[in-house]
């Protein structure tokens, strides 16, 4: 039921906006084109950021550097009674949504989606964001150099999400 509702939100929103504008006698398609052009320009502007970002994520992943860090962290995970299988997922989640989803589906395959690990992974993926991606795309779009207190804030919020997901599925 909840899933059905959330699937209906998008078509309803689009339908409502277009329908409302038609009733308000707006030149709907011309309005659309005006905004669409801006959207296109914006995407073209962030494409270099996107390429730079994905390379910075791809290189350490392919070289095995991320795996090595995950290996180091797994020792700590043992002490804290966190399933060590969740460490690579937690780490990869911060840099790439698709790679994180891939790892989670591997965990589903191995342990099942309703095991402790499967549940913790599901909640973890749902309550955190791709930090590195968000920062580079949003701040890349306006060419921010001095990030102020944004980075500590992002890390604190993400850490809270990680701890909370491990705790509620313990």
């Amino acid at each position, binding site marked *: 039921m909840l899933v059905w509702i959330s699937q209906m939100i998008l078509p309803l929103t689009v339908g409502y906006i277009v329908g*409302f504008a038609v009733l308000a006698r707006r030149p709907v398609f011309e309005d659309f084109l005006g905004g669409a052009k801006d959207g296109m320009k914006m995407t073209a502007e962030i494409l270099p950021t996107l390429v730079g970002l994905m390379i910075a994520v791809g290189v350490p992943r392919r070289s095995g550097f991320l795996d090595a860090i995950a290996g180091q962290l797994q020792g700590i995970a043992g002490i804290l009674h966190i399933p060590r299988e969740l460490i690579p997922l937690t780490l990869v989640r911060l840099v790439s949504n698709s790679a994180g989803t891939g790892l989670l589906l591997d965990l589903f395959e191995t342990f099942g989606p309703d095991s402790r690990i499967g549940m913790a992974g599901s909640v973890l993926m749902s309550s955190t964001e791709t930090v590195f991606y968000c920062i580079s795309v949003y701040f890349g779009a306006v060419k921010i150099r001095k990030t102020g207190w944004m980075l500590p804030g992002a890390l604190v919020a993400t850490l809270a999400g990680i701890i909370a997901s491990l705790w509620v599925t313990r």
Partner: protein
Amino acid sequence: MLNYLWSFMILAGLLFGAVCGNLGEVTQGLIESAQDAVALGITMLGMMTFWCGIMEIGKQAGLLEWFTQKMNPLLNFLFPDLKPDHPARAPIAVNIVANVLGLGMASTPAGLLAMQELDEKRDGRATNAMCTFLVLNISSLQLIPVSMIAYRSQYASPDPGAVIGPALLATSCSTLTAVIFCKIMQKISGR
């Protein structure tokens, strides 16, 4: 900050690859990442173009203004620096609601618009409002993890929706932490 982080990730990856003797793999990864980025850009291009168009329709029809006014109490609390007629208010309101509803593809265009409107001085410095906005986005606002439920039923979970409750709790924790952190930083760093 981003300069250091970016260089570190590239250099650490290259160095590690060189030490482990799989630089060929790293080169391959580099090329593929660049291709993936363009593929993602093309997907984004379609969605950004579409949503910015729809938002413009809503704006011209006066819907956006009405909607932003409904969100004003929340916006005033989160962004005390923003004047009542600031042009970033509308895209911020859309971004937050799209995030909460899990319309990821609609939240990014609004988010980028908001960032551009917030960047008035163009001096490369992140203001309090910009930091607050980004930290909130990163704290994950989505109420119902729709795609996660889909993945779980795909893997034959007896109860795919079991993730909703815990996810709601965890997301509330991270968002609450983010809001508290932002409010503290807004007080400390003044205007």
